[in-house]
């Protein structure tokens, strides 16, 4: 009998193409997702060495980081460098014969939303992309990591990645979530509990009743931020919810292949008694709607809390908190619900899916926003189309939101969507670093429902008061 294995062990073992004596492995890659920012130099490298893409049929490209999300975007990209990057991807996709969703295609969107939506991401796969939020795909029980540009070139040329195995970590969320608490609150609460280095060197498997109860959209939100917790990847074992989501997608298996795939997918779970190097358990009942107050995703508190003081911390964090409060313009002891908001951003690969938009629209229905600026940037053209069909787009527009085209947008502000100096934003994205959403911009990370609530009151707000 073989020793009990974790889900990570099983996927890893199924993909080792070569193992050296020191444990360094060549891990075979089933799906390689590509976007315009981290790929040009990789294609340039292939061209210079006269190499081809080894498996173009397993390589999918889509521009997302730089693309404008305003309705007039077919007129082209103003910023010259952004335009050059997108044009380079157009050219490289064509030259190397890989699957491509150009800006003009309704299926275009954020790479981590397009992959699952089109059925490219399947349980048990290895998935990589030159972007740290590749962890998102772990929601399907796929082993998914972000890689650097040299590795992008390596995967293009060899369809493998040089890897050493990470450790196993289990994050269990027991019980049921309370009303108003969402997947975003789970993932932020976990980072709040473990810190941004809590998962370093590990692959996290999320499990427990509260995780099982989540939709695929919610599971993607949870895995998306595994990287903010320092982990190499996040995973959730596939189940009926997963199979239901995957079935019928354009690139999902069909007929007899579906049956064969399903039979294997059903073996993808952690065996009884398998070893985890680290275990963290949270009770779902203890999780409240949360917000970040600082400049690190671990700076998390329940919305009912107050801004902490540097003295509440120890070690190097004292100075970091002092700097963060100064940057954020906050005073210790201030109620979080007294913090006034200028801008609301709903979107990103964390919370730009249909369910996220529904949750926000639910709160906004028939009401008007009080903030200066609010925008919704759907994660893909198809999410946008569906929201229009469901009447959600209209709710957003009636409330005073801008209804944008798909892309990364204000999540990292590489396109014109940026905060100005001192501007304060409630955002559904994943990073609140200094300058992330624009020079000296201030970011509070929240769930879509909480973002909608803040838009209506003009300050951080407990969404439960509006339900």
């Amino acid at each position, binding site marked *: 009998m073989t020793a009990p294995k974790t889900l990570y062990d099983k996927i890893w073992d199924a993909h080792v193409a*070569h193992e050296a004596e020191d444990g360094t492995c060549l891990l*075979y890659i089933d799906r390689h997702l590509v976007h315009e*920012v981290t790929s040009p*130099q990789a294609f340039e490298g292939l061209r210079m*060495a006269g190499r081809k893409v080894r498996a173009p049929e397993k390589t999918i490209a889509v521009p997302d980081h730089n693309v404008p999300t305003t309705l007039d975007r077919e007129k082209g990209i103003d910023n010259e460098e952004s335009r*050059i*990057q997108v044009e380079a991807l157009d050219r490289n996709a064509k030259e190397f014969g890989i699957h491509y969703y150009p800006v003009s295609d309704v299926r275009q969107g954020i790479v981590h939303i397009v992959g699952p939506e089109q059925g490219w991401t*399947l349980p048990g796969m290895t998935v990589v992309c030159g972007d740290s939020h590749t962890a998102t795909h772990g929601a399907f029980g796929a082993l998914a990591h972000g890689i650097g540009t040299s590795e992008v070139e390596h995967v293009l040329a060899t369809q*493998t990645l040089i890897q050493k195995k990470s450790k196993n970590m289990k994050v269990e969320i027991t019980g049921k979530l309370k009303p108003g608490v969402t997947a975003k609150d789970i993932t932020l609460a976990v980072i709040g509990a473990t810190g941004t280095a809590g998962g370093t060197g590990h692959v996290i498997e999320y499990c427990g009743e509260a995780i099982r109860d989540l939709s695929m959209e919610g599971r993607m939100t949870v895995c998306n931020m595994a990287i903010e917790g320092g982990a190499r990847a996040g995973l959730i074992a596939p189940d009926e919810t997963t199979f239901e989501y995957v079935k019928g997608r354009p690139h999902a298996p069909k007929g007899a292949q*579906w049956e064969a795939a399903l039979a294997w997918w059903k073996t993808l779970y952690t065996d009884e008694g398998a070893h985890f190097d680290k275990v963290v358990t949270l009770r779902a009942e203890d999780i409240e709607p949360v917000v970040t107050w600082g400049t690190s995703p671990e700076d998390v508190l329940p919305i009912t809390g107050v801004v902490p003081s540097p003295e509440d911390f120890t070690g190097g964090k004292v100075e970091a908190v002092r700097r963060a409060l100064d940057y954020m313009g906050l005073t210790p002891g201030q109620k979080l619900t007294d913090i006034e908001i200028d801008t609301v951003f709903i979107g990103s690969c964390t919370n730009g899916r249909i369910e996220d938009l529904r949750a926000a629209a639910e709160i906004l229905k028939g009401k008007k926003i009080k903030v200066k600026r609010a925008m919704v940037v759907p994660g893909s053209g198809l999410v946008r189309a569906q929201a229009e069909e469901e009447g959600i787009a209209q709710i957003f527009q009636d409330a005073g939101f801008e209804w944008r085209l798909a892309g990364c947008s204000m999540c990292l502000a590489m396109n014109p969507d940026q905060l100005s100096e001192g501007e304060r934003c409630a955002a559904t994205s994943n990073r609140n670093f200094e300058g992330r959403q624009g020079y000296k911009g201030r970011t509070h990370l929240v769930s879509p429902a909480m973002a909608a609530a803040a838009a209506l009151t003009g300050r951080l707000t407990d969404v439960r008061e509006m339900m």
Partner: protein
Amino acid sequence: MEKFETFTGIAAPMPLVNIDTDMIIPKVFLKTIKRSGLGVHAFDEMRYDRDGNEIPDFVLNQPAYRKAQILIAGDNFGCGSSREHAPWALADFGIKVVVSTSFADIFFNNCFKNGMLPIVLPQEQVDILMKDAERGENARMTVDLEAQEITTSEGEVIKFEVDAFKKHCLLNGLDDIGLTLEKAAAIDSFEAKARAERPWV
């Protein structure tokens, strides 16, 4: 990749701790589609004022250090993003070796992939090199990777550790892709087996 050969060069002191990848190359320069040409923007915000004029105090702007090939840096050099623009910028500037007590993981690996040698040494030895580097243009150090030695301008020899495989690759100018392609047969047979077992992939 070029072979890493023994050289004697100028070392610049950068005692600041936690020099992150945004300091090495700010986000606005990530929009390039080339690996080359980032050297003029290395350390941009420390090196130039908002009008683009050089800040004379910054070490690499000082006449003695403009041609530095070695950086002696404070703790935790290269923390932050996984993007490779930071090592590209340093390499393009002409840096071949960075010495510190510690490096961020991804940056450390990215250096090797771009022909640079990051060296980890204990504090006391970094201090010795820092002092030597502060002496300016005359402070030429010699880095011998084969022997795993740095020699200060005064002839003091400091030994360093390096992963044997990474050393082999640097010395022979082997890039990862070339090495992996030597294992093409293993990849081929894995692919054939995977196609039979999981034809839907």
